[in-house]
C-alpha cells in the first residue's frame, strides 16, 4: 500500500532533453522561418489552455467524486491529485499572454471603429482582463491546494474529520470551477472572435476539458501499471474510466451538436461567422475533430470487452488527447492565427515542449507521496471494487 512512484533520473533527463530540444527547434523556427507573431502567441494560448484544462479537469474529477461519496476511484485519486500541481505553472504561462495581447485579440485595438466591440469595452479591456486572470488563478490555486493538503492529511491520519473537511473544499472548488471555467473560456477563447458569442460556449469547453483529463488519467494508469506500480488497480477500475470516456465523449458531442445546430438553424450572420470560418477554411480538421472525438470513443469503447482491455483503452485515451487538442486548435487558431493557421512542425514542437513540462511537474508531484491514499475511508471499497 505504501508504494511510491520513483521518478528516476533517467525519466527526468529524457523529459528535460526533449523539452530542451523542442524549445530550441521552436526558437529556431521563430528566428528563421518567422511564423508571425499571432501564430506564435496563438500557440502559447492554445497550449496554456490545453494543459491548464488537464489540471482543472483533474480537480473537477476529484471534487465531484469526493462530493458524491464515490468509493471506486480511491485507488487512482493520486493521479488527478498530482495533475492539479500544474495550475501555478499555468498561471505564470498565462501571464505571458500579456506580451501578445495585441497580436491575439482585436479588441485590444483602440483605433477600431466597431460599435459591437466598442460596446464590450466594459468587459474586454486589458486591466480587467488580467484582473480576472489573477482572480481565476487565485481561486484555482487556493482550492486545489486545499484539496491536495487534505489528501496529505489523509495520508498520515485516519481521522474522518479530514475526509469531511475535504468534501467542503471539494464543494468550494466545484462552485468556483463551474463559474470560472465558463468565464475564462469567454475571456481567453471566445473573445478571440470578438464579435461572436454563444451562451453554450463555456459549458462546451468545460466538458471537453473533463474528457481530456479523463483520457490523461487513463493513460497515466496504463503508464504506471506498465512500470509495475498500482498493483491494486484492477481491470474493473479501468473499465470505469472507459465508461467515463465513452459517456462524456457522447456528452461532448451532444454539446457540440447543440451549439452547431442552433447556430446553423438560426442562421444569424453574427453567429454563423464562427462556423463559416472553420467550415470553409479548415473543413478537414473540422470534420476530423468530430470524428476523432465522437466516432472513435463511441465505436472503440462500445462493447463490454473493449472496455476491459487496458492497452486498448489507453490507445483510445491517447487518441482522445490528440482529438481534444484539435478541438482547442479549432477554437483558437482560426481566430488567433488567422486563415493561414496550420498544424506544422512549430505547433507540434510547442505542444511537445508543454507536454514535457506538464509531465515533469505531474510526475514529480506524484513521486513526492505514496501512490495510494491509504487512510481514505473508502479504500476498502475501491480494493473490492467490481464493475
Amino acid at each position, binding site marked *: 500500500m505504501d508504494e511510491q512512484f520513483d521518478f528516476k533520473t533517467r525519466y527526468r533527463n529524457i523529459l528535460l532533453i526533449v523539452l530542451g530540444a523542442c524549445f530550441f527547434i521552436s526558437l529556431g523556427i521563430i528566428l528563421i522561418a518567422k511564423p508571425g507573431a499571432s501564430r506564435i502567441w496563438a500557440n502559447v494560448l492554445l497550449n496554456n489552455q490545453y494543459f491548464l484544462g488537464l489540471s482543472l479537469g483533474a480537480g473537477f474529477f476529484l471534487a465531484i467524486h469526493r462530493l458524491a461519496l464515490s468509493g471506486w476511484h480511491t485507488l487512482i485519486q493520486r493521479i488527478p491529485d498530482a495533475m492539479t500541481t500544474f495550475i501555478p505553472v499555468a498561471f505564470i504561462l498565462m501571464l505571458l499572454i500579456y506580451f501578445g495581447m495585441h497580436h491575439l485579440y482585436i479588441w485590444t485595438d483602440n483605433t477600431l471603429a466597431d460599435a459591437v466591440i466598442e460596446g464590450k469595452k466594459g468587459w474586454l479591456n486589458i486591466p480587467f482582463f488580467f484582473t480576472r486572470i489573477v482572480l481565476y488563478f487565485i481561486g484555482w490555486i487556493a482550492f486545489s491546494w486545499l484539496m491536495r493538503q487534505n489528501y496529505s492529511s489523509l495520508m498520515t491520519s485516519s481521522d474522518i474529520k479530514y475526509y469531511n473537511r475535504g468534501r467542503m473544499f471539494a464543494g468550494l472548488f466545484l462552485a468556483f470551477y463551474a463559474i470560472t471555467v465558463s468565464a475564462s473560456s469567454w475571456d481567453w477563447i471566445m473573445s478571440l472572435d470578438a464579435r461572436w458569442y454563444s451562451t453554450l460556449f463555456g459549458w462546451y469547453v468545460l466538458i471537453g476539458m473533463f474528457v481530456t483529463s479523463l483520457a490523461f488519467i487513463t493513460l497515466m494508469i496504463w503508464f504506471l501499471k506498465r512500470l509495475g506500480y498500482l498493483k491494486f488497480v484492477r481491470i474493473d477500475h479501468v473499465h470505469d474510466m472507459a465508461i467515463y470516456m465513452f459517456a462524456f465523449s457522447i456528452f461532448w458531442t451532444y454539446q457540440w*451538436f447543440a451549439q*452547431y*445546430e442552433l447556430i446553423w*438553424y438560426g442562421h444569424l450572420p453574427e453567429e454563423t461567422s464562427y462556423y463559416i470560418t472553420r467550415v470553409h477554411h479548415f473543413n478537414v480538421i473540422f470534420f476530423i475533430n468530430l470524428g476523432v472525438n465522437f466516432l472513435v470513443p463511441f465505436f472503440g469503447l462500445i462493447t*463490454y470487452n473493449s472496455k476491459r482491455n487496458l492497452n486498448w483503452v489507453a490507445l483510445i485515451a491517447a487518441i482522445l488527447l490528440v482529438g481534444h487538442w484539435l478541438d482547442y486548435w479549432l477554437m483558437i487558431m482560426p481566430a488567433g492565427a488567422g486563415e493561414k493557421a496550420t498544424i506544422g512542425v512549430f505547433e507540434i514542437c510547442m505542444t511537445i515542449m508543454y507536454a514535457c513540462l506538464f509531465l515533469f511537474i505531474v510526475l514529480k508531484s506524484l513521486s513526492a507521496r505514496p501512490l495510494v491514499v491509504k487512510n481514505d475511508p473508502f479504500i476498502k471499497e475501491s480494493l473490492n471494487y467490481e464493475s
Partner: protein
Amino acid sequence: MSDTSYITISFEDEIPLLQAVRKLRENKEIIKDVLSPFPVHGLDEALSMKRTRIPVVGFIFGALGAVLAFGFQAWVFTVSYPLIIGGKPFFSVPTFVPITFEVTVLFAGLSMVAALLIRSRLKPEITFTPLDVRITDDRFVILVDTPDNDASLERVKSILSGIQTVEIK
C-alpha cells in the same frame, strides 16, 4: 411437483446458497437452475454463466433504426417531395439528427426488451405454478439435475454437509 427428476435444495440466505453452488460444481454436479427472490451478487460467476448477448441485439436493431430513420428522412426530402423550408437545403443533415437518434433509441430499447422476453420465455399466461411461492419472497433454491432417488439424495446431502440448508428433497 411430483414428477421431478431433479433434487431441490432450499436456503434462507444467499451466502450458503453461493457456498453450495460452488461446492456442487466442484463435485461435478449439474446445476439445472438456481431460483432466487433477487439477483444474487456473484452467482453469475459461481455458475460460470456466459454473458448474455442482449446488448448485441440492441446494437443491431439500433443501427437498423438509425439507417431507416435517416434514410427515410433523406428520401422524403430529396426524392419523394423536396420542399424548401426555412431556406434550408433539401438534404440537411443537422435536422435529420434528432429523429434519427430517437428512432435508434426506440429500436434498440424495444428490441432488447423483446430479446429478454423471448430468451427468458416470459409471456403473459393465466396460470402459473411456482416451485415454491416463497421463491419470490425469501427462499433461494438450487435445482440439481440428477435422478430423484435415495442414492443421489444422499450424495448431495453429503456434499452439502456443513452448509446451512432449509430442505433437501
